[in-house]
């Protein structure tokens, strides 16, 4: 019996090549997308979870009750946790130490992902070692643990334990461990770990992340409460010692985030150690996968029900020869599952092919078959069964219900059903497509809007050079005039930060106020304003020849004036909470965008204090490479042991929109796929209609109908359906676009033409799909088609 089903199914497939292709192609695309997305989701959900005792491991964070969450904690928190909390097995601190120079055998490389940690780090977080012993690797202060990736670039295949490298241009370290994550993923994916060389003996300064592994069955909420109480007490004492009277708003809650939540549930944390995952993009991807697969399944259902009447004779005959309904239902489901199995095989292939593409979109390095072939194949098989069942069950139900006497009556074959259900499904497909297009349109518009928007400063041709040592800026300043003499260099500034970079916020107190402020802080010299072309609203910027400007004068932005409610900002006096002397505000700079346009412009204070991490050069040149070469040549006198690195401020600033651009890309591909699959289905349905109406078309032509008349006849249905789809997609697209745009402080308006364009584009390609076949049918020789009946 089953063999009989299979035989019929296979021969049906062979006989209806067009429809089989439409079905299998659509389903395989849908399944390929679901496979890739499932892989991605699996990967995202398994970050860190695989680590030994991960369920007992937590990251400490400070929760400002609605004011945000911050992962930075005091230097000595890990030490305190181990000393004073019996619930804690072991704890450790971690701080990213930024891009740093590494020297081995005369070769110099900047290593981007470096971290400083406590000696207990690898005892707290069970990262697997390929070489070395995690228990003791960092017992010596000059021990260094590196990733397998880095080990292979520097040392090739050999075991590098004991090799000595120079780090940061000054100190020698011995390799004591090599981490190998294999195919597993962790948010802790640094290339290089060394011990902390310093710590701040303060409970109000926060400069590292703290992780702790607890004993089993610890009351976490209780621990959080005790920690909060104790930390509040320590902080209060420190504030009072600084002559600052703290208020309730100065004390956060101290909490523990489970390790396996770190990767996906940290989007609302003020700063992440690494570009993390985001539970929202997980939902988005899951939704996209389901939508694409649903559109493909709808194709199958539509074609199968449309063509059901062609199977009526078979159903009738089988029932007459003794089949009962469920047997036929099974047969038709076997048929759909067979098709989805074929599709699954192709889907695996497609997934493998599309993988590099997909990896670029999601920013991961996933594997399809090489990772866990058995698991993947089983998964895809399961997916195929499910898909086949979903696609097949409704058509099977319809077809198996035919009563033999009715099914075998002549006339039934031609009539078919009215196809209302089909029309609803097609409308649904195109609603999804148009809504996706609308949302995509607004994402692109918003990204373009942000990139093209006036920032309040000039980011073009501003070259940024990171300094390896804070002290290097003295040398830069000494060489300032020589730099400015280089052909194409207009001005030079050194500063702690530039717009678009991570900006620290510090506690600042306005003289005479009880409540502190916490604005962004930038330390800069007098040429910062000129280099970035900042505009003054009041007063003046720092001047090079006024000594007090580098000691205790302040420049603030308009947002700070508003936030602090300064009636007369010039002359008002400020200090950092930890300092003792106040200094004057000498100028108010017009608001400029410190961050991407998704954020409001927040209060900023600028100070001349000698903390500088970057040099910025305003260029104006037609021969960029010559100018850069000249700067590079002179830079050798600044940091002779460190090769110069540089980037451009406009590029760096635009990088803030990477995530939005990626999202736009994701939705773009999703839209393309959905549209393609929907068009595939439309193509199949039209082919079926043309086939069914060949005779009618022939007669109409003989009676004198024009080609366009026949094309119109065939496209009328689609026009109505897509018009309806457009009407439904309008509010849906509006809702999602509006919700997405709400996240941006500065946003493009919801212009009507994006909606119109999305609808028009979809309807046009749809009409093209239908129309071309209509033309073909209309041009066919009518006598031929009438004779063949």
């Amino acid at each position: 019996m089953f063999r009989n089903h299979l035989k019929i199914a296979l021969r049906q497939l062979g006989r209806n090549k067009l429809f089989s292709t439409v079905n299998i192609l659509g389903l395989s695309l849908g399944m390929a997308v679901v496979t890739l997305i499932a892989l991605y989701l699996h990967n995202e959900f398994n970050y860190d979870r695989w680590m030994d005792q991960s369920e007992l491991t937590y990251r400490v964070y400070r929760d400002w009750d609605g004011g945000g969450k911050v992962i930075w904690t005091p230097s000595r928190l890990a030490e305190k946790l181990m000393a004073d909390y019996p619930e804690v097995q072991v704890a450790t601190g971690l701080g990213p130490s930024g891009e740093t120079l590494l020297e081995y055998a005369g070769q110099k490389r900047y290593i981007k992902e470096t971290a400083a940690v406590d000696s207990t780090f690898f005892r707290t977080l069970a990262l697997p070692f390929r070489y070395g012993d995690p228990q003791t690797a960092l017992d010596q202060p000059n021990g260094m643990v590196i990733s397998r990736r880095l080990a292979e670039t520097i040392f090739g295949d050999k075991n590098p334990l004991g090799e000595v490298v120079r780090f940061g241009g000054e100190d020698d370290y011995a390799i004591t461990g090599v981490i190998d994550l294999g195919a597993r993923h962790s948010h802790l994916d640094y290339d290089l770990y060394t011990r902390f060389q310093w710590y701040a003996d303060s409970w109000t300064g926060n400069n590292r992340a703290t992780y702790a592994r607890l004993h089993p069955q610890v009351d976490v909420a209780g621990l959080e409460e005790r920690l909060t109480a104790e930390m509040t007490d320590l902080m209060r004492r420190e504030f009072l010692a600084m002559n600052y009277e703290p208020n309730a708003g100065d004390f956060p809650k101290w909490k523990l985030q489970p390790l396996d939540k770190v990767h996906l549930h940290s989007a609302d944390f003020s700063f992440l150690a690494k570009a993390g995952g985001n539970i929202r993009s997980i939902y988005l991807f899951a939704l996209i996968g389901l939508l694409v697969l649903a559109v493909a399944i709808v194709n199958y259902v539509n074609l199968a029900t449309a063509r059901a009447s062609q199977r009526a004779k078979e159903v009738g005959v089988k029932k007459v020869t003794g089949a009962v309904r469920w047997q036929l239902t099974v047969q038709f489901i076997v048929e759909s599952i067979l098709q989805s199995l074929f599709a699954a095989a192709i889907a695996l292939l497609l997934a493998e092919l599309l993988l590099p593409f997909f990896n670029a979109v999601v920013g991961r390095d996933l594997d399809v078959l090489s990772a866990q072939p058995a698991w993947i194949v089983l998964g895809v098989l399961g997916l195929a069964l499910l898909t086949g069942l979903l696609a097949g069950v409704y058509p099977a139900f319809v077809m198996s219900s035919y009563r033999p006497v009715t099914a075998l009556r002549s006339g039934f074959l031609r009539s078919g059903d009215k196809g209302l259900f089909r029309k609803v499904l097609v409308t649904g497909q195109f609603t999804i497509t148009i809504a996706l297009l609308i949302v995509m349109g607004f994402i692109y518009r918003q990204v373009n809007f942000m990139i093209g928007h006036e920032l309040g400063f000039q980011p073009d041709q501003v070259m940024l050079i990171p300094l390896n040592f804070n002290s290097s800026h003295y040398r830069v300043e000494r060489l300032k005039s020589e730099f400015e003499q280089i052909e194409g260099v207009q001005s030079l500034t050194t500063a702690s930060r530039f717009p678009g970079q991570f900006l620290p916020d510090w506690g600042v107190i306005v003289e005479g106020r009880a409540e502190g402020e916490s604005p962004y802080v930038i330390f800069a010299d007098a040429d910062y304003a000129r280099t970035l072309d900042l505009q003054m609203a009041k007063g003046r910027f720092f001047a090079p020849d006024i000594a007090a400007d580098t000691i205790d004068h302040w420049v603030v932005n308009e947002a700070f004036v508003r936030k602090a409610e300064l009636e007369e900002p010039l002359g008002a006096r400020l200090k950092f909470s930890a300092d003792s002397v106040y200094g004057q505000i000498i100028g108010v700079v017009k608001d400029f965008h410190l961050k991407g346009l998704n954020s409001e412009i927040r209060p900023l204070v600028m100070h001349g204090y000698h903390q500088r991490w970057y040099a910025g050069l305003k260029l104006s040149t037609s021969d960029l490479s010559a100018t850069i070469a000249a700067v590079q040549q002179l830079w050798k006198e600044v940091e002779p042991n460190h090769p110069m690195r540089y980037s451009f401020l406009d590029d760096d600033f635009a990088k803030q929109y990477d995530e939005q651009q990626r999202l736009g890309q994701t939705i773009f591909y999703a839209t393309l796929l959905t549209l393609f699959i929907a068009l595939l289905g439309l193509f199949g349905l039209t082919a079926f209609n043309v086939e069914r109406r060949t005779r009618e078309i022939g007669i109409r032509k003989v009676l004198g109908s024009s080609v366009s008349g026949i094309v119109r006849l065939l496209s009328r249905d689609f026009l109505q359906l897509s018009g309806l789809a457009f009407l439904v997609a309008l509010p849906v697209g509006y809702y999602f676009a509006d919700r997405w745009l709400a996240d941006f402080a500065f946003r493009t308006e919801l212009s009507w033409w994006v909606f119109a364009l999305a609808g028009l584009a979809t309807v046009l390609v749809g009409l093209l799909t239908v129309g071309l076949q209509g033309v073909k049918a209309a041009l066919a020789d009518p006598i031929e088609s009438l004779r063949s009946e």
Partner: protein
Amino acid sequence: MITLSNLERFYTNASQKTYVLRDLSLKIEEGEFVTIMGPSGAGKSTLLNIIGMLDQPDRGEYHFFDEPVHKLKEKKRQELHKYYMGFVFQAYYLIDELTVYENIETPLLYRKVKRSERQSRIADILDRFQIVAKKDLFPHQLSGGQQQLVGVARAIVGNPKLLLADEPTGNLHSSQGEVIMDLFRQLHRDGMTIVQVTHNEKYAQYGTRVVELEDGFVRQDVAL
């Protein structure tokens, strides 16, 4: 074997009842070869379908042996249909995707006949109908007469008690038609009960009795 009493069958079209069968009573004994004749639209196919349990009367009683078919549940009716009836159609109605062999095999599959027995029964029938050479061909590769031979083979391969044939020769040339009718006569001699519908006076003579329908009534019932 079959007792029909006061059968009525009508269709409601735009709230108007059109009677196809009215007050029809008929008795058919085992071993008979009955021919039903009558003008087009007289209700012949409807009657055949009711006898074959593919259709139900709106009123009246139908006893098949001792079973009151009109009172039976659908499932039970399907069982009776499956084990006792063989059907032959004017348009053959072979399954296009199956070979001759596989078409004949279908009823056996639904009767859960074992594989070895299926093979011997089909081989036997292919032999008797002299279509062994055609067993791997598909329906569209056969002539009409050959297709109908397969149709008959499929109808009787499950050893039904009753063979119902609705204008089995309607689409055939006379020589092909005669092959089919000779086959029916042979089957009848071997003990099969047959009810056929035909417009052909000559083919009616192969049977033992002619029932003439008109407007849903039995107009004439003649034993030959």
